[in-house]
C-alpha cells in the first residue's frame, strides 16, 4: 500500500463545506493558502517599495487575479491531457523562440518579446513549463533510471531552448530553464556516478571558460567576488542591497520606514531587489517568515510529487517545485550577495507580469495532479 488512510479516501460526509468546494474546484487548499499568503505579503512590501503608489499595487493585484484564474483553469485539466499536449506546447514554444530571434521586439536592449497583435509576451516563459513537461513526457513510459540514449535525448530537449534563450540574450532565464530540466533528470534517478562525473567536468571546465570569457564578463565575475571594488558601477546594487538588509537588523525599521528604499538608494526595489526592502523594513524575522512560507510551498509541491499518480506527474511536479525553490534561492542569494547579480525576480512577490502567470500555471498543474488522482493506484 502506497497510501495509508489518507483523508482523500474518507467518505464525503466527513469533509467540511470548504473542503468539498475546493475538491469541486480541483484546488489543493494548503498550497493555495501558502501562495495567497506570499502574494498578499508581496503586495504589502510592494506598496512600500514602490513609493506608496496605490496604482502600482492595484496593477499587481490584477496580475495576481489573472494568474489565479489561469491556475484555476489549468487545475481543471486532467493530467492525461497535460501530458498529451506536452510535445505540442514544446514545439510551439520552440517555433516562437526562433521567431523572437528573427523578428522579436526589443525591450531593454534584449530581444525577448513576441508581438502577437493583441498581446506581447515572452516565449521563454512558455518554455519554463514546456521544457520540464516535454522531458517528463519523454520519460513517462521509459524505464527509470534513464539510460544513456534517453539521457542524450533529454539533453537535447533541455539544451536547445536554453541556447536559444541565452542568445536573446537572457542568461538568467536560460539557466533557470536548464536547471528545471536537469532537476527533472536528477529526480528521474540519474545515477550518482553520472552526476559526479558531470560535476567534475564542470569544475574542470571553469578555468577554460574563464579563458574564453570576454573582459566585461570577467569584470562581472570579479565584481561579484569583490563588490566593494566598484561601488558606483556594477557593485552598487549589491552594496546598497546589503546595506538595506543589514540595517534592518532583527526586527526591521518598520513598514514604510526603510530609508534605503524610500530614498532611492536601492535600485530595482520593486522588482528584483524587493527582498532587500522586505529585509530592511521587517528585519530577520520578516525574511525568515517569508523563507518558511516558500519552503512550505516547495514542501507541499514535493508531497504532491511523491504522491503523483504516474511518472509524468511525479517528475513534472518535482521539477516545478524544485525549480520554484531555485528561483527563490537565486533571487535571495543575489540580493544578499551570495550569488552574482542575474535578473531573477522573487517569485510571487516581485512586481511583474508574465512570470507570475507562468508560476501559477505551474502550481495549477500541481493541483491538477493532486486532485485528479484515481482512488486506487494503477
Amino acid at each position, binding site marked *: 500500500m502506497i497510501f495509508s488512510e489518507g483523508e482523500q479516501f474518507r467518505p464525503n460526509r466527513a469533509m467540511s463545506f470548504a473542503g468539498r468546494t475546493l475538491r469541486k474546484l480541483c484546488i489543493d487548499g494548503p498550497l493555495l493558502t501558502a501562495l495567497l499568503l506570499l502574494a498578499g505579503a508581496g503586495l504589502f512590501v510592494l506598496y512600500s517599495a514602490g513609493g506608496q503608489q496605490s496604482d502600482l499595487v492595484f496593477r499587481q493585484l490584477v496580475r495576481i487575479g489573472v494568474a489565479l484564474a489561469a491556475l484555476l483553469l489549468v487545475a481543471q485539466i486532467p493530467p492525461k491531457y497535460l501530458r498529451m499536449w506536452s510535445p505540442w506546447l514544446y514545439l510551439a514554444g520552440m517555433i516562437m523562440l526562433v521567431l523572437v530571434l528573427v523578428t522579436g521586439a526589443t525591450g531593454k536592449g534584449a530581444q525577448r518579446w513576441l508581438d502577437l497583435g493583441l498581446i506581447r509576451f515572452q516565449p521563454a516563459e512558455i518554455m519554463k513549463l514546456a521544457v520540464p513537461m516535454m522531458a517528463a513526457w519523454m520519460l513517462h513510459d521509459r*524505464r*527509470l533510471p534513464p539510460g544513456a540514449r534517453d539521457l542524450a535525448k533529454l539533453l537535447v530537449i533541455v539544451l536547445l531552448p536554453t541556447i536559444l534563450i541565452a542568445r536573446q540574450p537572457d542568461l538568467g532565464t536560460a539557466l533557470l530553464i536548464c536547471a528545471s530540466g536537469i532537476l527533472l533528470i536528477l529526480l528521474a534517478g540519474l545515477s550518482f556516478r553520472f552526476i559526479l562525473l558531470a560535476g567534475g567536468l564542470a569544475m574542470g571546465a571553469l578555468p577554460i571558460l574563464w579563458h574564453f570569457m570576454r573582459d566585461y564578463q570577467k569584470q562581472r565575475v570579479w565584481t561579484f567576488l569583490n563588490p566593494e571594488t566598484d561601488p558606483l558601477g556594477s557593485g552598487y546594487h549589491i552594496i546598497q542591497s546589503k546595506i538595506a538588509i543589514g540595517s534592518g537588523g532583527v526586527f526591521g525599521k518598520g513598514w514604510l520606514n526603510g530609508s534605503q528604499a524610500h530614498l532611492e538608494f536601492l535600485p530595482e526595489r520593486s522588482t528584483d531587489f524587493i527582498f532587500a526592502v522586505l529585509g530592511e523594513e521587517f528585519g530577520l524575522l520578516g525574511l525568515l517568515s517569508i523563507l518558511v512560507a516558500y519552503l512550505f510551498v516547495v514542501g507541499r509541491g514535493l508531497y504532491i510529487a511523491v504522491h503523483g499518480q504516474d511518472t509524468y506527474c511525479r517528475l513534472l511536479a518535482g521539477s516545478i517545485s524544485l525549480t520554484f525553490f531555485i528561483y527563490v534561492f537565486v533571487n535571495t*542569494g543575489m540580493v544578499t550577495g551570495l550569488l552574482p547579480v542575474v535578473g531573477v525576480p522573487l517569485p510571487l512577490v516581485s512586481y511583474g507580469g508574465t512570470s507570475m502567470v507562468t508560476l501559477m500555471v505551474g502550481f495549477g498543474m500541481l493541483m491538477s495532479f493532486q486532485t485528479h488522482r484515481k482512488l486506487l493506484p494503477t
Partner: protein
Amino acid sequence: MLRQEPIKDTWAEQRLFNNRVIWALAGMLLLSGLLTNRLIHLQVVEYQRYADLSHGNRVRIQPLAPTRGIIFDRNGVVMAENLPVYQMALIAEQVSDIERTLDRLMELDLIDDEQRERFFRARRGKRSFEAVPLRYRLNDEELARFSVHRHEFPGVDIQAALVRSYPLGSSAVHVLGYVGAISEFDLKRIATSRYAATSHIGKTGIERQYEDQLHGEPGNRQLLVNAQGREMDPKGGASEELFRNRKEPVPGSDLILSLDSRLQIAAEKALGDRRGTVVAIDVNNGDILALVSQPGFDPNLFSAGGMSNEEYFALQNNADKPMFDRVLSGTYPPGSIVKPFLALAGLEYHAVTPGQSVLCEGYYSIPGNEHRYRDWKKEGHGITDLHDAIAESCDVYFYMLAMELGIDRIHAMLADFGFGKITGVDLPGEKKGLMPSREWKKGAFSRRSEQIWFPGETVITGIGQGYMLATPLQLTHFTATMATRGKRFKPRLVTAFRDPLSGEITEIPPQELAPVELANDRHWDEIHKAMAAVMNTPRGTGWAAALGGEYKMAGKTGSAQVFSIGQEEEYEEEEIDERLRDHALFIAFTPLENPQIAISVLVENGGSGGRAAGPVVRQVLDAWYREQKQ
C-alpha cells in the same frame, strides 16, 4: 507510442523517486541554511556596520557659511558690511522650456546676453533640482517687475543672499580691498573644508590680509537626502535628530581700523581726479588715518558677481591702473624730500654745522670733472646755509653735502629711518623701495664695470634721484619718524578686533620699532626749524600752501623726475608731455610743538611739489584740525 519498451517496475521507480526527493529536500535545507546564515551575518553580526552605512547614506552634512566680519573706521563708521541682496535662480527640472523662459526674461529686460551665457556655463555639472543663479543683485524696481510676471516663470526663484557691501563705494578701496569669487589660485592657500560654504574670499587689502579673522568658522546642518542628493522632508523623529546635530557657524571677527573715513574722504576730494596718493599717519602710534591711491574703483562690483567681463578687462587694462595701489606698491624717486634726512646725516656725522654756508651758483661740478649738476634755480641761491638750503630746496648745497658724506654714511642714516625696507604695514603687496649702496650695486649689476659705485651717483643721491626709490607709505613713515625725533612705530590699519556676538573689543597695542638715535638731539630741532621755514617763510617752497593757515606745520616739497633732460636744455613744464612731467611730492607734519600727524602727498606728473601737492596737504590738514576741534 507503440515502441517496444522494457516493462516498467513501478514500485522500484517510486522508491527511486522518493529517494531522490529526500536528497532534494536535504539540498534545499542546506541551501536554506546557507541563506539563513547569510541573513544572520548581515542583520545580526554586522548590523551596526550596515546601520551606520545606511545612516551615512541618507544624511548629508551641509556646511553653513559664517557671516563675514564687519569693518569699521576709528569712529565706528561702517566701511564693509554684508547686505541681503536678491538674486534670481532657475531650477531646471521645474522649467518646461528653458530657452523660452530665458527669452521671456530678456524681453522683460531682466537678464542680458552675457548673463544668459553665464547661466549655461554655471549649469554644467549641476543636478536638475539644484538652483542655478541667473542674475545677481536685483534692484527694487527689477524685483517689482519680476513679481508682476512671476506667474509666467515657474521654476524661477528669487533668493536672498548676504553680499559684501562697501557703503562708501570706491572710498578707501586700496585699504579695504575687495572680495571676489574663490578662484583656483585661492584654493591653494586656503583650507577647503573651512570654505565649503563660502563663495567669496578677500582678494586684496584688509579683506585679504585679515581673511582668516574676517571669515569665521563654518557650521553645518544635516539633511536627509535621497540617492540623487535631493533634500527630502524628514519625518517624525528624524527631523528632531537632524536639528539637534546642527552646528551654528561662528561669524568672523569685526575689525576696527585706524582710518578716519572723514579725513579719508577729505583727502580723496583734495586730490580730485588727479592720479596720486595721500597718506596721513598718527606719528605717536603709527595709525594710518588716511590712505588714498587715485584712481580707485568700486569694490562693490566684485562682490556679487555683478561685473561683466568687459568691465573687468576695462579695469585691468586702464592706463591709469585703478587697481594698482600706488601707496604700497608704487615706488618713486623721493626727490628733494630726502634733503632734511640728508641734512640730519650731515649734522650727525659733522660734515656740516648749521652755521656753515656754501655759494650756490646754479650748478655743481665734481672737482676735475666738467659735468654740471644743475640746481632747479638756474641763477642759483647765492650764499646758502643748511637752514636756507632746506627751506629753498637748494640742490647745490645737497650735491656738496652728499659728496662730503659719501654714499656709505648716507646709506647708514637713511637705512636707520627705514629706506629700502618694508614698513611692515598690515596690508599685502608692500614694496620695499630701494636705498642704494656700494654693496647693493655689486649685487644688482652683472657687468663688472657697472658694479663700481661712481661719485656722480653719490651727487644725485643728494637730491633723491638716481637709484633711490621709496613708496608713498615709506615717505610718510619717515616723515612721522622725523616728527617724533626718531621714535618709530610700525604703520598699521587694524587697531582692534571686535567680537560680533558679545561686542567685546580687543585692542592691539601699537608696535614700536627700533628708534633712530642721534648723538646730539639738538640736531632734530635744527631740521624741524628748517622744515618749518619751508612752510613759514616767504622764500620757502611750501609758503603758498601754508599761507593764512590757523596752525603751523613743518614740511618739505619735492619733485621726482620721470624723464631726464639734457645738459643744456631747460625743463619747461608746459612744453613736456603730461605723462613725462615730474611727480609732485610733499611731506609735512603738524603741529610744530609736539607733532601729531604726518602726511605725504604725491601727484603723478603734477610738476612742482609746492604748487601741485601743497594745496592737497593744506586741505587735508585743515580737515584734520577741524575734526580735532569738534
